């Protein structure tokens, strides 16, 4: 199994084997994270540009750390400082990056498809660090890594993804990938945040968290954007928390040694209770560590060789 992609935009066109390759490579990368000297010469002389059009300290720092450990030069195109605010189009930004001979671009953008748009314009590799409501492949891969670390394999495992499914790129990418890996996925949320068209994912959906808890091997809470309440998508945090908030009592009903995931940042007391988030069942901090390892693996796979695409 070899890596044959120029970009990582979505999990749509990755096979289960390719996902496993990423996870396997990430395992080696994780070892590096625990060394006294966390620095590799692997990507010496390669350049990575981070373009975060949406705020995200966590994801950006994770990519930045990953790139630096691998020895690449990482440049932060801070949106505030670059010409983005002056109205430069993504197309012109792409041309600028091309002219700088950047090897890899990592982009997060509020528009679905922005990373694919960039990838079509650039010879450089592109990693999608989250595009609109569309995809967040690196988050999903780090979630898979975290699960695999606990389980060894995905077959026969039941994963609940709970919350604002409609607006969540994390839920989409997770559901797509977990299905490929052979896990059972159930999407759970109120009808306003889990409309029927989400059925396209081909996984089960439910409005009732409590009835789905028994037998769940992992439960993933999604971050709830507070402004959804003003848009009328849910009536109050109180009711949301009662129906969909993860607590220790709820998780105890799975009858299993269930792990609890969250892509962060947490709204403690809303989608997840504080004591659960800090409990032994929570793998939220591991997710952060694993995020760096998985992103190192992806960066290596994309630009480790001269060219990342086979002719």
């Amino acid at each position, binding site marked *: 199994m070899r890596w044959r992609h120029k970009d990582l935009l979505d999990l749509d066109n990755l096979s289960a084997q390719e996902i496993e390759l990423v996870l396997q490579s990430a395992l080696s990368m994780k070892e590096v994270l625990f060394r006294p000297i966390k620095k590799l010469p692997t990507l010496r002389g390669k350049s990575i540009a981070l373009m975060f059009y949406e705020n995200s300290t966590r994801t950006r720092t994770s990519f930045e750390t990953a790139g630096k450990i691998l020895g690449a030069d990482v440049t932060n195109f801070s949106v505030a400082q670059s010409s983005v605010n002056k109205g430069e*189009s*993504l*197309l012109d930004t792409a041309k600028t990056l091309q002219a700088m001979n950047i090897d890899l671009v990592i982009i997060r*953008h*509020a*528009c*679905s*498809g*922005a990373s*694919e*748009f960039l990838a*079509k314009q650039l010879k450089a590799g592109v990693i999608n660090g989250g*595009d*609109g*409501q*569309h*995809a967040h492949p690196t988050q999903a891969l780090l979630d898979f890594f975290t699960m695999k670390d606990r389980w060894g394999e995905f077959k026969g495992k039941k994963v609940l993804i709970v919350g604002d499914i*409609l607006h969540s*790129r994390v839920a*989409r990418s997770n559901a797509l990938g977990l299905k490929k890996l052979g896990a059972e996925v159930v999407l759970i949320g109120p009808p306003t945040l889990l*409309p029927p*068209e*989400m*059925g*396209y*994912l081909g996984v089960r959906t439910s409005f009732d968290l409590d009835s789905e808890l028994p037998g769940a091997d992992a439960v993933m809470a999604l971050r709830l954007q507070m402004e959804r309440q003003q848009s009328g998508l849910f009536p109050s945090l109180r009711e949301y928390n009662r129906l969909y908030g993860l607590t220790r009592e709820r998780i105890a009903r799975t009858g299993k040694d269930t792990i609890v995931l969250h892509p962060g940042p947490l709204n403690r007391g809303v989608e997840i209770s504080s004591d659960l988030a800090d409990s032994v069942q929570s793998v939220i901090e591991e997710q952060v560590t694993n995020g760096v390892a998985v992103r190192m693996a992806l960066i290596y796979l994309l630009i480790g060789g001269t060219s990342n695409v086979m002719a």
Partner: protein
Amino acid sequence: MLWLKNVHLVDPGQGISDKASLLIKDGKVAKLCRGEKQLTEEEVLMTLGVSELKDVKQVDGEGKFLFPGLVDAHVHFREPGQEDKEDINSGSRAAVRGGFTSVLAMANTQPVIDTRALVEFVRLQGERAGLARVYPVAAVTKGFQGRELTEMVDLQKGGAVAFSDDGLGIQSAETMRLALEYAKLTGCPLISHCEDTSLAGQGVMRKGEASARLGLKGIPASAESVMVARDALLAGETGGKIHIAHVSTKESVWVIRAAKKLGIDISAEVNPHHLLLTDEDVQLTNSSYKVNPPLPSREDQEVLLEGLLDGTLDMLATDHAPHTWEEKMRPFAEAPFGINGLETALAALWQELVLKDKIKPEKLIELWSLNPAKRFALQGGTLKAGSPADMVLFDPEWQERVTAESLESKAQNTPFLEKELQGFPIMVWVGGKLVMKNRKIVEKQ
């Protein structure tokens, strides 16, 4: 003086779909001879009032169709204000190249067409271009604000043939009701862009599995259909005259069908792209598929076609909406809505609907020439003797690849770009004047 021979004339206004010869004099149809019978030279000379045949231009249309010039009830020519997208001249060139001899130019320019001076400007620019007949549509409300009505009577005197805030839906039902009442002074229909903005929200494509898959915000079908229902009821209550622009949902078709049964004065149009493309075709990195109303579901598409065939829906219209390459070369959500339609619409429908036997050529012409001409009280729409010689000689075998260079429009935002289409106009006359020949505009001498 023109003698058109051996054409297959499709003229639903006269109930003709037959071999025919036509004589054109002074910009009008002087004589029409149908069937296998040929005009004799003497008849030709006598009718045209000339002594020698060399004074008569002859065109042999063997194997070709002759249509009355197509009338497009919905184009955006962007002038004044956004001439980088299109202007009335380039839009007119695109129109005649696509087989359209009359167009209704929408009022959402900058400034919007809400005064008589602006209406006359549009009309005058159309005359200056000297190609298609450009009929201005004037705004319903001043500045498209959705509140105060425009001076509809004066606007009509300036040349407006209909009123519309197209580009924006009129959100206030009361404004719409009053507009329908007041427009009675003109006898012109109100063209309604049916869109409830609270339902449409920030959506960029039809809400459904395709939008969920692409992670694009969805516009529910109800954003259109609830407004169609509202406007139909208001037209019924006021006795006003309403025309529904760009119908794209099955629910809208059901409402219009019911309204017509109730005797409400309602008409409606369908855009070719809504008949040919669905939300499943939308590509994240090709904003040529971004259009408002958005591309419908497959099911909607079937009901739309059915509505056209059974007379619920009255006409086809392109909603020609040119945008610059730079504007469209953006991420899907940031690109403007609109499809460039005039030069590809007829060919695309011919290839996908006529050649696949889903619609007859006679019906196609009824929908795209006769019915719009009637609804908006325009000349044309038929080629009976005495009518203006707005004509399209159409070659059903002509194949052409749609390229950016080939388009007369300033814009290239069409999903048919780089695609091969079959069935194109090869000669177009407006008022007897040849304006397009062999796919090229006949330039002014």
